[in-house]
């Protein structure tokens, strides 16, 4: 039986100030990045919003020999067009739809005047054209691929496109997630205690804000898939917090003389093997997606990688300290009332029956 996690007695909670300090440092960096980028004139935006969110230019190109999606994407990336959406046209296989986000410093389609609109479309067209020129000459003007034998492709349509995910979807996602968190808060409070509920939910907020900080600092593209990633992160973070809280809840009636501080610390250590295995497997799988999952999924996989790692970290670094801190404010007697269901016959009976034999495990 392999077991590298025997007898780990690491004092996690003593280091809580370091953990919280690191978290705050990253969040402050994220805040500086988000606010700073807005304030610097001519700079980038807080977040690198993809074409899903801010719209851009759609170019339809017809090729003599159609390169693969990847080749087109590489050509665009080399020409400095970040995060294009390449969509093949299945009923016209030699044509391809290329969507690129708005170029830096331009205003979104919505309220922009007719002239801005034309300029934007032209700029987008030029960008795509300069990238596609690596495949050969374009058939210009009235020339078609048939009439210009040396041309490799022709741009047959350019237009601007608005955002897919307007503010409506974004708001809907935020509201739905917040309501979901309220549900989590109430359920954990019902099953455990308000202090634990608050700890878990604050940890979730921490994770999401940290992920957003990473996206702002490193200017990773925010597109529709990131919404799905954030929802996943929320679920995983709560899951992780509950596993440890569950162990604390189990240990409290078994160790009436110990402080909650010690009990929580030991509970983290007792479940450490599980935490490392689960988190390790999930994170390694996501790492495979980051490394080999291709560029289009990169925002999604990066968000998952950062967020799932944080989900584990925040249970130890944020959720547990907050729960303990709050309980210490409430006073010890209150905790015992809350967490040790002294009068709930069966649960306690089985716990105390096991407590004798269990002690060596925890000691």
């Amino acid at each position, binding site marked *: 039986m392999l077991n590298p996690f025997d007898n780990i007695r690491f004092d996690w909670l003593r280091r809580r100030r370091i953990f919280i300090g690191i978290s705050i440092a990253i969040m402050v960096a994220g805040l500086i990045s988000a606010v700073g980028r807005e304030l610097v004139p001519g700079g980038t935006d807080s977040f690198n919003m993809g074409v899903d969110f801010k719209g851009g230019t759609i170019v339809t190109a017809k090729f003599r020999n159609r390169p693969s999606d990847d080749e087109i994407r590489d050509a665009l990336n080399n020409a400095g067009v970040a995060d294009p959406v390449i969509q093949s046209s299945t009923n016209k296989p030699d044509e391809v739809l290329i969507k690129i986000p708005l170029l830096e410093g331009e205003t979104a389609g919505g309220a922009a005047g007719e002239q801005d609109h034309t300029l934007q479309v032209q700029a987008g067209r030029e960008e795509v054209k300069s990238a596609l020129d690596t495949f050969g000459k374009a058939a210009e003007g009235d020339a078609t691929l048939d009439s210009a034998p040396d041309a490799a492709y022709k741009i047959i349509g350019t237009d601007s496109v608005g955002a897919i995910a307007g503010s409506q979807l974004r708001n809907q996602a935020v509201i739905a997630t917040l309501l979901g968190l309220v549900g*989590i808060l109430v359920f954990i409070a019902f099953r455990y205690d308000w202090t634990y509920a608050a700890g878990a939910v604050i940890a979730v907020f921490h994770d999401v804000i940290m992920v957003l900080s990473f996206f702002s600092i490193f200017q990773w593209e925010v597109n529709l898939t990131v919404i799905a990633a954030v929802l996943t992160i929320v679920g995983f973070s709560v899951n992780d917090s509950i596993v440890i809280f569950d162990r604390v809840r189990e240990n409290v009636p078994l160790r009436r003389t110990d402080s909650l501080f010690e009990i929580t610390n030991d509970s983290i250590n007792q479940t450490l093997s599980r935490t490392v295995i689960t988190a390790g*497997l999930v994170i390694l799988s996501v790492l495979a997606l980051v490394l080999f999952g291709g560029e289009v999924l990169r925002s999604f996989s990066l968000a998952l990688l950062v967020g799932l790692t944080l989900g584990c970290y925040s249970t130890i670094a944020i959720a547990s300290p907050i729960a303990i801190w709050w309980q210490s404010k409430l006073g010890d007697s209150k905790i015992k009332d809350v967490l040790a269901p002294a009068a709930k016959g069966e649960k306690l009976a089985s716990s105390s029956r096991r407590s004798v034999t269990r002690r060596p495990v925890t000691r």
Partner: protein
Amino acid sequence: MNRTGLWIRTGVIIAITLIGVYLVFGPRRMPTSADFTWEGIKANLAENINLGLDLKGGSHLVMRVKLDDYLKTMTENNAQASLSAIGDHTDPKLTVANSSIVAENGNYSFSVTLADGTNLDTVAEAVKKKVDLQNWNETRSGSTITWTLGAAAQNVLKVDAVSQAKKIIESRINTYGVKEPTLQNQGSPTSGQILLQMPGVDDPERVKALIGAESNLALMKIVSAPNPSPVTTYPTIDAAKASLGGTVPANRKILPYAERDEPTAAGRTPDQKAPTSYVVVEYPAVVDGSELRNAEAVSRTGAQGDYQITFQFKPAGAQKFGEWTGKNINNYMAVVLNDEVKSAAFIKSQIFDSGEISGKFTKESAEDLALTLKSGALPAKIIYQEERTVGPSLGADSIRSGVEASLGGLALVIVFMLFYYRGSGVNAVVALVLNMLLTVAALVLIRSTLTLPGIAGLILGIGMAVDSNVLIFERIREELKAGFDIPTSIDLGFDRAFVTIIDTHITTIISSVILYMAGGAGPIRGFAVTLILGLLINLFTAVFVSRTIFNWELSLRPKMDRLSI
């Protein structure tokens, strides 16, 4: 546990597994031998799992809202409403001498010339009270008032109309059941172009007709002698006009009355019979489609061609309709759809909140009509400009690499579980594979469309399934180390881990249900659905299935002194 119990549990597991395998890989018809070949299985799999726009592609439609028509209709309606507002006054000084409308080449205005130029203020006041002319400029010269729509105001109205059209189109395709379409403005904001991408649907022409269907419903009073005399109809337009003294006043309209018409979603069928008669109705309408709360296709007998549409009004509309019907008992009322009278009936008693469009509709046409009525009327006609089928929006190549990377990740998990937990790792792998199979089977069963957010839900579900197994195994190891014998350790391990698993699963299910309810029709819902299914199934696979395998081990080797875990 005794053998009989074990056999029953095993039977349940095998039965569910077989159902799952059939749902995912089997055909939705009588299986033939071809279904057992590799090709047949692949074809069935592709048939059973609906992939969304981002993973499989679909239709790409560029349409244009005819904004010029929209402004023209608006100008005409305002002109007519203004005339009718002035006509309500009995003061002879307010007689309209002349009126005109300009609605072309980007110029939209209407003017009213009065017999007497001294009362223009009263007229302007009367019009403003009845007609919303917020965006219109009022100018006066002599005894003429002109209301003009400036260029800036035109743009504001156009942008509004496009976003209104987008909302209506979205609601129509969502109600029809198209999963996760994307809608974008295309071109300049005032061009009226909308780009719609939607995953493959069975009947694209029907969806196209549905999107573009006009559905202007109005309930109007017919100018006719009251019941018991039959409703007054005229054989030709001219005859109807003659009854009004040769000209149609602003507060009257002549509409065709086609009794035996079977409209499709687009409002017309190719073999539609010419209207047989005309009726004169009072304008404006008593209530119109904007007051509708709900519309439904219903059938008395269930036979084809026997469907009709019932509708309910919103409270304000119901109030208006109730007051009006109360005052008009025995008068005739017309149900007007797209400027054609669908039915004419006398009012038996006061009606408040509901009505019906009778006629001989087919089930499909009645359903489509109810759907378009419910979504509201489009601001103007829509024409299709470009149509093509497109590949997945995430790109076929990146999906392939994504799938390969995910399979790699899964292989990693399986290898680790077998390496780390040895014999018990087999339990975990069986539970995991079964979890994935059954989750996909459940998605097939509820005809859900799988998109990337859905896959994210699947990933989280699988992650929590792995976690459940790890929780159970680690717990069993702890109990073994604490000195319990193998059966007790397994019992305690499952019992204690079960509490944790239930808590984590219920928490996530609660938040997913909230996400589903509050998340609208989009990607959030797709995520929530797969996650909820994955977690419910995990309670079965990680706990019930895995436990059964352990119990078989115990039952087959009662004197086991080492558990491979």
